[in-house]
């Protein structure tokens, strides 16, 4: 089956000469949650803007649900719900009016039951007659999500859904996205927060300077690039790393109270047991051990750094 979104050779050069996208290829499968990670100015928002019809591509082609975004823009756009990064709302309008307008804009017949369901799911039902300017920032973002969901899209774009949102609301948002996935909606989200991608995404794409550097299954990515750090808490502090431990390339931490050893979980021999044996042989006592999996954030930072070094 064809992918719900097919992006081939997408480029964007702004009139200023700035190249925001350098030939991006990406396929998104129906029903998945795809997280697009990247630093500021990487091209995340530009890419979403082109797919949704807000910006024009300089080259390449995109189809959404089989519809070309230029030739058959009606078909493509009908399938998309967009929640942009900026909080842009009709301040003086009531919640229910602005959400109903969105449904009409997308050519869908009036359906009060659906609007009610969307508003209830987003805890906006009690506020439906409130003017948007009376709502808090978090509530306004919910209104924008309600607008995007009002026309029953197959694909939902969330551009930095939790930027500037407090921790509690972020949790709520994650829960909501989880629920949306149950209904079969494909979700593409961009984020700075790696933990967000780690928490929710099925697949992760890393974009930097207009190039898609990597697209991978999240668990595979974590496994592949995943390193673990073993921390050995010593019984008595030592002044320097004994020369006998040079083979493991350990570092001393916490004023000589800890030894840290980084190992590859995929290697045949991780070196953990031999290190511990060696410590025993050397008579270095330890009272605790712990290991830590590197997060997407570590992976991301190392990827972006590699790029900079190259």
């Amino acid at each position, binding site marked *: 089956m064809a992918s719900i979104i097919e992006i081939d050779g997408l480029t964007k050069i702004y009139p200023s000469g700035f190249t925001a996208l350098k030939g991006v290829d990406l396929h998104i499968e129906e029903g998945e949650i795809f997280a697009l990670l990247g630093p500021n100015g990487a091209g995340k928002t530009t890419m979403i803007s082109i797919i949704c019809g807000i910006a024009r591509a300089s080259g390449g082609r995109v189809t959404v649900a089989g519809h070309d975004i230029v030739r058959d823009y009606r078909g493509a756009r009908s399938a998309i719900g967009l929640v942009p990064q900026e909080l842009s709302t009709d301040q*003086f*309008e009531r919640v229910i009016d602005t959400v*109903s307008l969105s449904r009409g804009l997308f*050519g869908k017949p009036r359906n009060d039951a659906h609007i009610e369901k969307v508003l209830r799911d987003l805890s906006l039902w009690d506020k439906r007659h409130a003017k948007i300017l009376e709502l808090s920032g978090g509530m306004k973002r919910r209104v924008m999500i309600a607008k995007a969901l009002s026309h029953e899209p197959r694909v939902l774009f969330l551009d930095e859904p939790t930027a500037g949102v407090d921790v509690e609301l972020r949790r709520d948002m994650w829960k909501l996205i989880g629920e949306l996935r149950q209904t079969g909606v494909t979700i593409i989200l961009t984020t700075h927060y790696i933990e967000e991608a780690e928490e929710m995404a099925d697949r992760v794409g890393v974009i930097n300077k207009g190039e898609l550097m990597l697209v991978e299954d999240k668990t595979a990515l974590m496994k592949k690039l995943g390193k673990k750090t073993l921390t050995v808490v010593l019984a008595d502090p030592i002044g320097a790393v004994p020369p006998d431990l040079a083979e493991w390339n350990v570092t001393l931490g916490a004023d000589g109270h800890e030894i840290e050893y980084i190992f590859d979980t995929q290697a045949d021999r991780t070196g953990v047991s031999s290190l511990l044996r060696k410590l025993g042989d050397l008579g270095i006592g330890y009272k605790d051990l712990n290991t830590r999996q590197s997060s997407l954030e570590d992976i991301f930072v190392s990827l972006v750094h590699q790029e900079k070094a190259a």
Partner: protein
Amino acid sequence: MSLQNFRAIASIYKFELHRFRRTWLTGLLVPVITTSLYFVVFGGAIGSRMTEVEGIPYAAFIVPGLIMMAMFTESIFNASFGIYMPKFTGTIYELLSAPISATETVIAYVGAAATKSLIVGIIIFLTAHLFVDVPVAHPLAMAGFMLLIAVSFCLFGFILGVWAQSFEQLQVIPLLLIMPMTFLGGAFYSVHMLAEPWRTITLFNPIVYLISGFRWTFFGKGDVGIEFSLIFVAGMLAVCIGVIGWMFRTGYRLKK
């Protein structure tokens, strides 16, 4: 031309009229008060000392000009604001990402603004009746002319709203160009009352033809022939439609 999404047209039209309803008091009371003031000043105080203009009492003579003046302002203001505000607040993202064509967008926004402008025109017409007897020689032509003017100036306002990048730019054309042109376009006098060379110079002002045409529908005569007036209205419509077509084709100030 691409017309399919009638629900979108209806939704925008309804939403925009709703926006007007929110401010109906100022929206409708202001034209009534302004018109009344013009009648007190021009019709009562000054008009009583003036003779008839081409056989028409002065107070009645200025009615078509007053209606036109208000409709020019209303049309430009409403249509330019209607599209400028979404640009300003950022809500335009939704319009751009919706399955709606350029033609549908323009019909919805211009239709809503023209509706309000027509309502204002009719209110002024009715208010004028409280002060003077205003004969209407060609009622159908009058209604048609009002409609054409409302649509043309709303299209013009739409262009202005897309073009403007600040509130100042939004104001500058109506205040510095349209308003003086209207005052000098024979809203309160007949071009024949001017001495040469002003009479000839005035004929370069397109507003003269619009006001004259509208006056013709009331009194059966204008400063210039009705056919010239119709040519000017048609020309303005064509130019505005052409410019809007170009704006959407190139994405001018709408799409990045």
